[in-house]
């Protein structure tokens, strides 16, 4: 029998694609031209987790004579380093598809940078959902749970698609603006990612309960929605408002 998490993972992928695909389609002016970018980010989470982050932790751990596999039992500075490692690595990796020429050529304006960034972030998150499902499937602790017992995974992954998208959009807009905006965009994306991960770390430290984590997640989603809307308005193409034909029946 296949691990039950894979069933929920398939549902999650379908729902995420429908929800965020529909969202991007409607908000980007009913265009499908960004959708092929969804493929590019899929393997990046596995690459980040299996190779880059793990190797970085081993190298730093060996240099400082700390066992990298100690988790939260390690020295405080090393735990802090590992918490920071995720945003530092992932935010760079998420924009790596822009090294492919056709992908970069799509970033023609700040508005297109927003949508390219959002799609790359969603793509990364979809890959991450599969990677997490794989990791859960390796853990015997979850083997007895039926697929419908993983709704927490579904909810969290649905939200994560959006948050990853917003963080990447912040960075890609920074890149498009050029100069100092490039490191500023990166730092902003890393900071948002770090802020997003704090409740999970606090939960792992057993400082807060899972209920508190869930409430914070909803608040965080609202904050990211505000950030997205501000980004969208800042790159808003004035033509969009004028494109709609208008019939005035009466004015007084």
């Amino acid at each position, binding site marked *: 029998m296949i691990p039950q998490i894979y069933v929920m993972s398939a549902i999650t992928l379908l729902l995420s694609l429908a929800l965020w695909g529909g969202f991007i389609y409607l*908000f980007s002016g009913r265009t499908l031209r960004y959708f092929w970018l969804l493929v590019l980010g899929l393997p990046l989470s596995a690459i980040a987790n299996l190779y880059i982050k793990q190797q970085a932790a081993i190298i730093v751990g060996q240099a400082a004579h700390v066992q990298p596999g100690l988790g939260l039992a390690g020295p405080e500075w090393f735990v802090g380093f590992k918490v920071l490692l995720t945003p530092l690595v992932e935010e760079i990796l998420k924009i790596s598809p822009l090294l492919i020429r056709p992908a970069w050529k799509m970033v023609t304006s700040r508005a297109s940078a927003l949508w390219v960034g959002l799609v790359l972030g969603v793509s990364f998150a979809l890959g991450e959902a599969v990677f997490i499902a794989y990791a859960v499937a390796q853990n015997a602790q979850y083997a007895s749970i039926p697929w419908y017992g*993983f709704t927490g995974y*579904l909810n969290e992954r649905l939200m994560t698609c959006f948050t990853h998208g917003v963080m990447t959009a912040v960075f890609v807009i920074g890149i498009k603006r050029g100069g100092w905006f490039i490191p500023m965009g990166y730092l902003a994306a890393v900071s948002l990612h770090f802020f997003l991960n704090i409740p999970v770390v606090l939960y792992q430290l057993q400082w807060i309960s899972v209920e508190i984590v869930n409430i914070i997640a909803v608040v965080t989603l609202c904050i990211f929605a505000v950030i997205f*809307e501000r980004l*969208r308005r800042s790159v808003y193409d004035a033509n*969009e408002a004028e*494109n*709609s034909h*208008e019939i005035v*029946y009466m004015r007084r």
Partner: protein
Amino acid sequence: MEIQLADTVRSFKPRPSYGWCWLILLAVIIGALGIAPALALGIDSTNARITLLISVPVTVAFLILAFWFPTMRYELSREAIILRYGPVITYRILLKEIRTIRRKNLTMTIWSSIRFPGIALFKIPYGNAGEVKMCATSALNNILLIETEKEKYGLTPDNEEEFVAAVRAQMEV
């Protein structure tokens, strides 16, 4: 002898749409997400109870809104246009306060109350129109926007020209 003039009210239907399907779909998804943890973890689980506590009212609310979908209508009386949706929406627009009537395609913002393809209810912020009180069977396209000094209202009468002509005729009386 006191003569009381009858206040005739004309009723106009909205454009047909499948907006109610979206309300039911959402109700089903939220309901399923609410029930699943209780099935998997048992009703004794705090997580399952909290999820049920949140999802059941939302599911019921969407189902009730879908049930009221056929009641959406626009009434034109001597003094006002009244937009109705079940008992939850009664927007009264005084004819003397109307400044503009126009048809427009609205642009989205991320914020919304009830806005799905084929249905838009309550106050919704739009990119090119600001906050609009909606009682319409379309979320964005071909919205009849009625503007007063204080508010904007969005509606979608089935026979738009007849509706506008009736409103204009009533305003001129």
